[in-house]
């Protein structure tokens, strides 16, 4: 029972079917097809979101930054800006879409600033649902948000009320990865304290952030250790930089201060490498969770409300008909009363 065209590779040993080759086929197909990933970045302005994205993917996603003045900012509400970039590494193509949310948290009154964002996420789900339910399902474009980096300010004492409200509103729709921005403003002790406070507050408010899956028992020790370390470092305290600094003869990404150089890719300085590792090794998992958990949630909610809306409409119609009938009755009664009155008058004459 030998299979397909792989004859040359594997000997015709007894008992060997050959579907152990399947992962390779999947791999090749995926590589050919390429990966799609949508990452959303949310946080107040000035926390280094754009710099971090550029550092993460070693690209210049935001080449010309125009920073609007305070007067202009008053007019703007939260906007959604999606930029797509195709990155290729060793033959593997990644189509990365970064969704930025400028204006978040900038206004004096930030009550409505996350409505726009939630609407965007829902719209992406809606579009996918629509495509999925359509007749031609060959080229479904997956624009759903797979992961959301939420930038927490390192200047506070933990989560701000806005942070809590926002995360509570979207934790059922998207994978949240909290990130402490501009971590070079914290000493080691302050960083640990802040991380602990954030985790406490997240637990206290029942916010569900993205949980890294535990390594399977059959993975090697190194991978297990890496996963353990990653899990222990959430939320990641990161620093981003677009500048190359020369340190000990090497050019590295970092920030040059009068008191020293902060190296972006130095694990002792910050968790940037950990964040990148997590993103890269768990990209597939993030997509899966989006598909299996968040999208399914959305879909069931939508289909439920979709059907109940039909029922409501019937009821509404019935009510309306009733009302109309009652109104008619009343009118008729009035007419009758009028006619009776007239007749009475005539008879009186």
């Amino acid at each position, binding site marked *: 029972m030998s299979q397909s065209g792989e004859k040359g590779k594997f000997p015709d040993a007894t008992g060997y079917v050959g579907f152990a080759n399947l992962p390779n086929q999947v791999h090749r197909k995926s590589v050919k097809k390429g990966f799609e990933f949508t990452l959303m970045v949310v946080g107040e302005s*000035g926390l280094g979101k754009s710099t971090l994205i550029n550092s993460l993917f070693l690209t210049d996603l935001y080449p010309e930054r125009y920073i609007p003045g305070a007067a202009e900012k008053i007019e703007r509400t939260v906007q959604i800006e999606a930029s797509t970039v195709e990155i290729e590494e060793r033959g593997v193509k990644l189509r990365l879409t970064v969704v930025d949310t400028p204006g978040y948290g900038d206004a004096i009154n930030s009550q409505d600033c996350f409505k726009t964002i939630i609407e965007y996420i829902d719209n992406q789900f809606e579009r996918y649902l629509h495509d999925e339910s359509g007749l031609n399902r060959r080229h479904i474009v997956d624009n759903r948000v797979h992961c959301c980096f939420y930038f927490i300010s390192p*200047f506070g004492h933990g989560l701000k009320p806005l942070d809590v409200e926002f995360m509570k509103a979207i934790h059922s729709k998207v994978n949240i990865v909290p990130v402490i921005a501009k971590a070079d403003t914290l000493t080691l002790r302050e960083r640990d304290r802040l991380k602990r406070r954030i985790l406490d507050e997240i637990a206290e408010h029942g916010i569900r952030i993205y949980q890294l899956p535990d390594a399977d028992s059959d993975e090697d020790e190194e991978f297990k250790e890496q996963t353990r370390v990653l899990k222990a470092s959430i939320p990641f305290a990161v620093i981003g930089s677009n500048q190359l600094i020369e340190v000990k003869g090497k050019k590295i990404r970092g920030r040059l201060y009068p008191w020293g150089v902060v190296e972006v890719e130095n694990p002792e300085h910050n968790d940037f490498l950990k964040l990148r590792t997590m993103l890269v090794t768990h990209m597939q998992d993030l997509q899966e969770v989006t598909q299996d958990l968040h999208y399914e949630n959305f879909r069931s909610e939508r289909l439920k409300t979709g059907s109940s809306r039909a029922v409501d409409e019937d009821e509404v119609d019935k009510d309306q008909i009733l009302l109309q009938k009652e109104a008619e009755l009343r009118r008729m009664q009035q007419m009758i009363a009028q006619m009776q009155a007239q007749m009475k008058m005539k008879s009186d004459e």
Partner: protein
Amino acid sequence: MREEPAGELETNPLSPMEDGEEKERGIMGQEDVSNCQPGQPAHMDSQDAITETGENGVEVDTEMGEKGKEKGMEEGELKKEIEMELEAEVKVELCQSVPGLQMSFIRGTDLFGYVGIEAVLDQMRRKTMKAGLEFNIMVVGQSGLGKSTLVNTLFKSKVSRKSCTSNYEEKISKTVKLHSVSHVIEEKGVRMKLTVIDTPGFGDQINNENCWEPIVKHVNEQYEKYLREELHINRKRRIPDSRVHCCIYFLPPTGHRLRQIDVEFMKRLGKIVSIVPVIAKADTLTIEERQEFKERIRQDLAANGIRVYPQKEYDEDPEESVVNNRIRESIPFAVVGTDKEHQVNGHKVLGRKTKWGIIEVENVAHCEFAYLRDLLIRSHLQDLKDVTHNIHYETYRVRRLNESNVSFSELGLSPWPLENGTADKGDSESHL
């Protein structure tokens, strides 16, 4: 000349001014007819010219008496170093600044013997030391920007309870509550009653509309309190001064521009109190980022018509302008605060220790904390108080008295409230 409440020194910036500059001023003053400054108290050879005006000088002395008191301090300082060459240029001139009023410059040796005007310096100093100073400082900014730490660092003592101690329950308060703490700090015999007014809850909510209102109310309430004390018929000898002399506004180091809330707050409060904006936690900005940020902030401040301390309009003389211009070019100061000490090169420094280096708070190459401290304490402390009293308080007072012009009884005042000498020029004329 307004009556100074006891214990307040006039602006006496010893460090930034060198004696040389003062000497020049003395000389300039002589030749500058309109400026009427006393000449140097050099040990001059008595010249005939001087003895001629001697008698004249005696009469004039009484008129000069008051002015002399003002300038007495400078003469005391000038005593230190006098160069002989300057003596030759010095001459007695009659100054004709006020028509009909003849004044001459009297030097210490012209008078028959040593009068001792300069001893007034010691008297003032002693009075200040006995009475002590009052200074009220308000810190405004979002939670976590290091306000308490900075105040502690500024005054090198734990005047502000830090909100990140282990047993502190961090609950972001729903409204802005003002929180006042007073301490008496003593240094070399000079006592200062420092009051720090904290504003927790500012800018922390989701909806921060009108979060500045409690602060505006508080500032105006202090002015009102002082006004009422001042208008009493029997006034206290020293009116307790709880007016806010300085408001430090903390800007988060975003690196971009002023936020809307910053603009709104500073627009409103810049009119009633002296605001000193600072960039908090500035160890997150590189030097270029810091410069660009500051430049953008200054543009935003100018574009919105926000006046921060030191205001250009209140510069009294050219060299104050020079000093203040230098300050204005570098506001807002980028500061880092800490109360921890570390060893650097063998001596202890205040600093923050990180894996990539130690940020020294008092090192001007690292951050501008030293400039802020010099501005607030070493050079402009008295000026801040003066600006608050002479400008902000007076503005408030004029507004209030004009409002209640119709019925004095509202204020509980008698129809002749201003007899005590603090009369508004307009009012006193009407009484005349």
